């Protein structure tokens, strides 16, 4: 079960990674059009409609879909100088409290993000650029990413309780 979940987190992170690559390609295509219409005067369309909007939406998707993997692999940072000086027992209590807090906060965020998505569906909200994009689509990527983050927090909490030791990688000192 835990193994399967970690594969889901990693899968989402790969989608995020290729989304970032897609942003680079989309913007580069626009630069290519700028260059070929201006410098070479080629008869090409001069803009990709709403490319800034699409880049933004892809950025949001990449950010949120990478959340659970980043969390599990110790990529999200925190202040550890103080807890590091505690006795192991107290440190474990802090870790459990932090994970419980993370699960609660992200769960709270998940609920209201889906409320926001439902509102966008209800009112048929669309983006205000040249190409109207129904907002529930990019917002759902945010919802999925945040939901997975919440699951990964609960998952880590359960593992920590079962093992009696922290499971989130302490970010490594290079």
């Amino acid at each position, binding site marked *: 079960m835990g193994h399967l979940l970690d594969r889901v987190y990693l899968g989402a*992170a*790969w989608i*995020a*990674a290729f989304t*970032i*690559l897609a*942003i*680079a*390609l*989309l*913007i*580069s295509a*626009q*630069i290519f059009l*700028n260059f070929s219409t*201006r*410098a070479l005067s080629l008869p090409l369309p001069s803009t990709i409609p709403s490319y*800034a*909007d699409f*880049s*933004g*939406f892809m*950025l*949001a998707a*990449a*950010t*949120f879909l*990478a*959340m659970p993997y*980043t969390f599990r692999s110790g*990529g*999200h*940072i*925190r*202040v*550890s*100088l*103080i*807890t*590091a000086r505690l006795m192991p027992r107290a440190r474990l209590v*802090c870790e459990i409290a*932090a994970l419980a*807090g*993370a699960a609660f*906060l*992200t769960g*709270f*965020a998940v*609920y*209201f*993000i889906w*409320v*926001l998505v439902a509102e966008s569906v209800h009112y048929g909200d669309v983006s205000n650029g040249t190409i109207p994009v129904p907002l529930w689509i990019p*917002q759902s990527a*945010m919802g999925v990413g*945040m939901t997975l983050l919440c699951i990964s927090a609960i998952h880590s909490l359960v593992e920590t309780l079962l093992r009696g030791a922290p499971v989130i990688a302490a*970010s*490594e*000192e*290079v």
Partner: protein
Amino acid sequence: MSDPVVGLILLAVLFVFLAGGLWIALSLSAVAAVALAFFSNSSVGLNMAVTFWGHSHSWSLTALPLFILMGEILLRSRLSKDMFNGLAPWLGGLPGRLLHVNVLGCAIFAAVSGSSAATAATIGKMSIPELKSRGYPEGLILGTLAGSATLGLLIPPSIILIVYGVATEQSIARLFVAGLIPGALLVAMFGAYVAVVSWLNPDMIPVERSKLNLKEKLWEARGLIPVGLLIVGVIGAIYTGIASPTDAAALGVLLSILLAVLSGSFSRADFLDALLSAARTSCMIAFILLGAAFLAVAMGFTGLPRNLAAWIGGMGLSPYFLLFVLTIFFIVLGLFLDGISVVVLTTSIIMPMVMAVGIDPIWFGIYLVLVVEMSQITPPVGFNLFVIQGLTGIDILRIAKAAFPFFLLLVVAVVLITVFPGIVTYLPTAMNR
């Protein structure tokens, strides 16, 4: 409840969350939630969702993951190592040697990127491992990087100057021009600091390779060509109008892939590694930015920064004393809020009092950038510290200690532009002709 009490309660809550090891992004969100729930007329959940959404898809943020990806690609190819080898013979004679790469690298990159986080991430990705392996002292590596990366805000293009220009209706072109001399001044000050510290502690700085003659130096310098091409390509695209500053990040990614592949040391596995690593780093930074944005919204609703600014305005101070008090005010706010939030939350109140005492708004914009630069390297909320912790795993408090001399240098810079305002106003005035 009075404002000071509310402020102290929120601070205490923030410190408890951070000290207890709650993730920074979540700590900021949690304090925002407490502020909204107990000290505002608005609701918590929807404000959180709307802020997360509204700030996660902004166009100006798209450059961040792209610049990070560029750094990851350069790191994994031979290019960044070649660059250091090419620079070593030239900088080897200077006190501080390759530490100047951090300062100069950040200054050059600042001309491409508008944010200090992207500058820290891109330059740090390459320079930290290289300088560590060459034996440079950790404190100076981290300090020069954290401090110099703040140049991303001052040397144009600059996101913060755009935000200030839009909020106060000042010419963004003039603000950009006004940042040039102060930017050069800071580069010189940071470089001089590195040189003096190294000169006083010669044992700390490792010896670079023995003396080469000019021919050998030039031959080693061929390693600078690929990265030089990359920089020229990206800056050239911006200044010929082929690409906007945000677009330029994408061009940087493509060019760095191309150069890495041509250098023959970049495999498909390296590429995939770089992609996943960029997704992870930019996710970490973006999540903290979202938490900080949510905290800024909560502060907007509670009115704390506004009331504090209005209180200062009510004191009827002389220009110099006003600037002194404002500097303290911005440093304190900058401890807990990110720089852009400080600007948007307070300009409404600050600008009228600044104009009333006859301070030039262009000068004030540059002054603001300098104090915002300070906020990037002060704990607990300092984005350069977060980025460098993300890169190295070293705790932000230790990084903040290493960066403290650079904080003081920024304070000196503020004093300098106050005493000699021409440093800022000379170029924009010359534009008027």
